[in-house]
């Protein structure tokens, strides 16, 4: 860089060839400048590169791989390739013919010997609940089967008598599947292979998505309702007092999430402080203690408390910049205090309301810990079900599909947030 600087400062009398400025070594000045700029760009990029590589490896690629699991479907095609080939000729009605069963018997015997049948059985069991038993049972006897194989299969397990089972095997023979997403939206395949909604009493996820979204909207509105007045108060107070009051916002913000959740359990439980106080004051009887925790109420109270600082911080920073003269001008022109507030002040706070609102909403739809600890049955959110499928039911494809839906919603919202305020204006503390 210093070399370019020197040459630039050299007297241009000596460095002109055909009216073009050149540097000492004779290269045109433009080219030299370009090279210097390229070098600077490279340096900037090299500074970013280590972190970018690190996050690619430890974060972005793993999430990409996880999302791939939501469509990845190798189990059937890797264990039953010949069966799938034989099923090509089957029209989907009734029971397939002998060649299919011949291939099945051979491949199930192999799968049983090298223990790959387990994965296949688990995979197909997601689609039809007796599949596991049928496949595990038949695969054990497959090696000893003798032609005609069709009859042997039909006698072995009742599921082999249902044409739906063969339709499922054929459908899930594709190396990529949509069935996890179908399940994530409470869909099911009917006899014609079309996607329809599940029976009413078996729907889980649509309700859960709706509940997650409505709880998040409720929490966002509550934080706005509580956050707006205190931000307004702090913005109108002198700096010193406002900074003191800010401690009330920042201390919860810096306090461990689990500490805050614990303290809400202590406060709200049946034998907790709030119930005791209410009894002491005489508002409720000893035997009608309020159940404020381990349900949706508890989740909403605790999450509103936890997310309130995320609303107050952007609101306050916007309100601080609003000059009080506008409202005064409106009043002097005859507006009532309410009109001046609603038509002049509030519109100017909209960027803050938007930023805080989207931020709180994004954080709350992906929340896991607080609903898991204080949510009980009715306060569970989509994240809790993802965790359930990851750790308990081990249906990782479905967990990945639900996770992808959640991730895409969050990314869309984040894009909106970015359009509203810009990512680098994110304030911390």
């Amino acid at each position: 860089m210093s070399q370019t600087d020197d040459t630039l400062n050299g007297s241009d009398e000596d460095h002109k060839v055909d009216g073009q400025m050149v540097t000492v070594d004779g290269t045109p000045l433009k080219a030299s400048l370009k090279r210097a700029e390229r070098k600077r760009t490279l340096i900037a990029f090299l500074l970013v590169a280590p972190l970018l590589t690190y996050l690619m490896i430890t974060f972005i690629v793993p999430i990409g791989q996880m999302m791939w699991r939501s469509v990845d479907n190798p189990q059937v095609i890797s264990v039953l390739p010949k069966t799938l080939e034989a099923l090509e000729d089957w029209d989907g009605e009734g029971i397939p013919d002998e060649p299919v069963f011949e291939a099945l018997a051979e491949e199930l015997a192999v799968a049983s010997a090298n223990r790959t049948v387990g994965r296949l059985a688990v995979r197909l069991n997601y689609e039809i609940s007796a599949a596991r038993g049928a496949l595990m049972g038949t695969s054990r006897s497959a090696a000893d089967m003798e032609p005609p194989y069709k009859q042997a299969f039909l006698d072995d397990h009742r599921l082999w008598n249902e044409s739906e089972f063969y339709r499922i095997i054929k459908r899930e023979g594709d190396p990529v599947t949509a069935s996890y997403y179908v399940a994530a939206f409470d869909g099911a395949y009917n006899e014609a292979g079309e996607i329809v909604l599940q029976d009413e009493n078996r729907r889980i996820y649509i309700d859960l998505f709706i509940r997650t979204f409505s709880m998040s909207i409720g929490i966002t509105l509550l934080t706005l309702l509580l956050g707006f007045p205190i931000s307004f108060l702090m913005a109108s107070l002198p700096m010193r007092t406002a900074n003191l009051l800010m401690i009330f916002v920042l201390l919860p913000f810096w306090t461990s999430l689990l500490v805050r959740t614990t303290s809400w359990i202590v406060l709200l439980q049946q034998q907790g402080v709030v119930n005791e106080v209410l009894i002491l004051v005489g508002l409720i009887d000893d035997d009608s203690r309020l159940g404020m925790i381990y349900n949706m109420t508890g989740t909403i109270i605790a999450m509103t408390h936890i997310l309130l600082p995320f609303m107050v911080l952007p609101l306050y920073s916007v309100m601080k910049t609003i000059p009080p003269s506008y409202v005064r001008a409106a009043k002097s022109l005859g507006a009532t205090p309410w009109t001046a507030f609603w038509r002049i002040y509030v519109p100017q706070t909209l960027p803050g309301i938007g930023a805080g609102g989207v931020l709180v909403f994004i954080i709350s739809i992906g929340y896991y810990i607080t609903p898991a600890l204080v949510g009980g049955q009715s306060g569970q959110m989509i994240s809790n079900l993802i965790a359930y499928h990851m750790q308990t039911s081990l249906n990782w494809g479905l967990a990945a599909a639900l996770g992808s839906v959640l991730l895409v919603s969050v990314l869309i919202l984040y894009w909106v947030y970015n359009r509203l305020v810009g990512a680098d204006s994110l304030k911390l503390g």
Partner: protein
Amino acid sequence: MAVPTYAGPLERTWYYTFRFLCACVFFFLIAPILIMIPLSFNVEPYFTYTREMLTFNPDGFSLRWYRDLFASDSWMTSIKNSLIIGISATIVATFLGTLAALGLSRSEMPFKGLFMGLLISPMIVPLIISAAGMFFFYSSIGLANTMPGVILAHAALGTPFVVITVTATLVGFDHSLTRASASLGAGSGRTFFKIQMPLILPGVISGALFAFITSFDEIVIVLFVAGVEQRTIPREMWSGIREQISPTILAVASLLVAFSILLLTTVELLRRRSERLRGMSPG
């Protein structure tokens, strides 16, 4: 904002009502944290105030739960683990994040928006999704249930905070300072350490503190990626809350509140110092 002398009775009433409502909100924010602290000195294993405590009878108070805490092996291990993981993750995150912020703040950096988006993505993506992704990834390369696995994961989560705080201190950076230093004969390394570093240091430190608290308070990744050997304080609290809630948890929680007050004060002092250094606000 005192009541103006010309205010009518209606305005006066509204003024005091508004103040009262705000006080209620501030109470809502702070009370849960403060109410819990005296309960950690309860002599009984209850989660509510006993009659002795309300009458300030010394018999109602004890350090029993704190003694339990310091005598408990599992709590002590978890404190040790939390510190090891938090400090190591902070070092990795601060180093990588500061470098990246220096690069991102250069005017020649191409595709700034895209890179910024990618670099702060760990802060945006819901933790449960990060945890699920990392669980599969770390299991496949054998880092699941190991200390380095948790450290690497936490470092990734902490980097956005470092990038954001350091970029913020660089926004007002006067580049004529580095040019002045270069013109006085300092090499680029010397210019960086003598001129740039002292100015961005407050941002680096507060970024590091954010990264540390992120790791120190993180539980979802720990639930998925860490094993029994790597139990951290939040993990221990999590099982404490789920299985049998004992007032020992309140003792831990109170200590953590004290810790967060310490961190909050440090970050606030650093922010003021940074603004003063960059001449953005008087003192």
